[in-house]
């Protein structure tokens, strides 16, 4: 049963509004479910799904988004977004603890600062390309823990021990979280099963508030990035990825566009860092090292290189795959002490390799292919719909990880 919708028709519009409304409703309602830390068991292992992990994942979504802007849309292979995320997290931690700023206000420092540092890194990136850029930015990611451990800043950063942020985010009194939870619990049939008894303590309310704040910031970040990609500068960004010479010939200023993209990607990383500080309320040097840099790449590839929505999946994967891997109690044939090791990194590494082979477009392309069996959107003729352009762009993006590039002409 596959329906066909004509692009721009009212049915298509309704379809889009309904799918978006469902997504927003899900995003808003999910904390009321997750706040009770639901769990499911397979064999002797119990896997949990807690709200704090979810908030943590939302912060990674924005970091993956920033990385995706640079790698997926601009074609600059940079691995250094963990550096900018760390920068943002530490600035927020320091301002909140030492200067008693409110969390959100720190964004006013974090965004310009990481943007500028990103531009500074982006300037050498004009000459350093491809693999070399990947190498340099991986080095940057490796250096970050040593930077915050350094004696001259360790008073503000907490040195090797990390820095705990004691300031709590309490839900404002005007937000009727408690009564929403009660109402949800009263929904017949599914209410009590999904939302428990609907009673919230102060800590639960705080956790839901943090999640809603982070989701709102993430929503704004995604919305702005989407607008950027669909705009004229966005087309320049993508043109550089697809053919640098062609872009330059068409009047795209390569160095300005590339440097600005680097800055914006870094700023998104910085915002993700602030979000991380809000979600976890603790920053430590080794969190923002090489492993995180690679985790972000895993998130990007799992979600889909060259997509925006892939970052949502990617952020969740970075948090929940390691979490659930660490909760595995026993696997037949595997010694138990192996399971106490870094199984999460192991699975993410395997996932990265397997997905590059099996589903190079990531989860988002897999989902789109499934969806296209149910609903087919037919472009209307004669109207220049920007989505059309983007579809072509995304088809090109799907080829970013392909094993053989059919369009490549052998350079003889």
């Amino acid at each position, binding site marked *: 049963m596959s329906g066909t919708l004509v692009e721009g028709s009212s049915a298509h519009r309704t379809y889009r509004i309904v799918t978006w409304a469902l997504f927003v409703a899900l995003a808003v309602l999910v904390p009321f479910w997750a706040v009770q830390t639901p769990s499911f068991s397979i064999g002797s292992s119990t896997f949990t799904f807690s709200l704090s992990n979810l908030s943590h994942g939302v912060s990674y979504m924005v970091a993956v988004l920033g990385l995706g802007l640079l790698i997926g849309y601009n074609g600059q292979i940079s*691995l250094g977004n963990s550096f900018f995320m760390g920068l943002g997290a530490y600035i927020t931690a320091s301002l909140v603890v030492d200067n008693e700023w409110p969390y959100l206000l720190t964004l006013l420092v974090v965004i310009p600062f990481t943007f500028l540092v990103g531009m500074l890194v982006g300037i050498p990136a004009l000459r350093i390309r491809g693999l070399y850029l990947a190498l340099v930015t991986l080095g940057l990611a490796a250096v970050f823990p040593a930077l915050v451990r*350094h004696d001259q800043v360790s008073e503000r950063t907490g040195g090797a021990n990390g820095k705990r942020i004691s300031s709590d985010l309490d839900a404002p009194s005007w937000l009727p979280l408690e009564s929403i939870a009660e109402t949800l619990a009263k929904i017949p049939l599914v209410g009590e099963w999904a939302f428990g008894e609907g009673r919230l303590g102060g800590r639960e309310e705080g956790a839901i508030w943090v999640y809603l704040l982070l989701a709102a910031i993430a929503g704004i970040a995604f919305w702005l990035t989407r607008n950027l990609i669909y705009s004229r500068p966005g087309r320049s960004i993508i043109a550089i990825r697809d053919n640098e010479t062609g872009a330059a010939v068409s009047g795209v200023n390569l160095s300005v566009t590339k440097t600005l993209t680097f800055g914006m990607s870094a700023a998104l990383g910085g915002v993700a860092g602030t979000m991380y500080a809000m979600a976890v309320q603790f920053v430590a040097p080794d969190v923002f090292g090489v492993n995180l840099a690679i985790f972000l790449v895993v998130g990007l590839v799992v979600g889909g290189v060259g997509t925006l929505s892939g970052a949502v999946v990617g952020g969740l994967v970075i948090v929940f795959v390691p979490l659930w891997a660490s909760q595995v109690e026993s696997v037949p044939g595997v010694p138990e002490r192996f399971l106490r090791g870094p199984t999460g990194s*192991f699975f993410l590494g395997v996932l990265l390799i397997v997905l590059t082979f099996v589903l190079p477009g990531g989860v988002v392309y897999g989902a789109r292919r499934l969806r296209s069996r149910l609903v087919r959107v037919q472009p209307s003729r004669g109207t220049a719909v920007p989505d059309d352009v983007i579809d072509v762009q995304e088809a090109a993006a799907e080829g970013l990880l392909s094993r053989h590039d059919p369009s490549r002409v052998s350079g*003889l």
Partner: protein
Amino acid sequence: MELFLARLFDGISSGATYAAIAVALVLIYKATTLINFAQGELAMLGTFVTYVIAVEQGLPVVVSLVLAMVATAVLAAVTERALIRPFDPSNHLPLVIITLGLFLLINALAGMIWGYDPRRFPGIFPADDLYTFGIARLRWYTVGTLVTVVVLLLLLSLLLRKTKIGLAFRAVSSNLESAGLVGVRAGPTLQFGWALAAAVGTLAGVLFVSDPVRQLDPNFAQRVLIFASAAAVLGGLDSLWGALAGGLALGLVESIVVGYVEWIPSQFGLATAVFVLIAVLIIRPEGLFGSKRVERV
């Protein structure tokens, strides 16, 4: 003066090990213009295999090292065939992603199997000093490492210049398509390059942890990889002897510059390596001894 000598010797010995890993990177880069981000982790794995054979099975260290080199070479050959060859060599992104995946996977696997407690590695050189100048000790380790790396480079140059497989390797690295046209089979040749690089990497890892002041744990290679890639880029990514020069330069920068320049704190060794890397790539991207790449627009 004695302090300077001590730092010089330190710089030479760590520089020689960076050079050895850099040689492994160069071998793969020459063949495929690919930087293998998992090279350090492969070396770490080989070092652990050496450790297991030598300490737990009780074989002599040198024999264990040879066995581990063979084992990692086989592993790398299989990896190249299964994970690298399916991809178009001119498209860097998937190859970067695959090698990063290997990095994560091998590092985690070693952590799961052997844990993170540092282990003392039985050195392959005598632990005492060859000669002492006051506090400056010229250790057997320093001389042994340098000599081993130089001998390794001589052997590799001979291999590449005098043997048939070496000729094929040079043909493939010079021009993949032309080599194919004259009947060189690119796949097995590149596979040979990967195997060779892994064996060299294992040797380098063992040299690195043979220093009595160092210990073996699954994370030691991350730092070494950054130094080694800076060394390889400094020397010119396609030059074997350049890797030695770059490695020694990096080792000396780490011990002498960081040792003498007051405002560079000692934790910043890694940062100086990254700085060297960036500076070389901006000022002279082909490195000291590398061949210049001309880009066709």
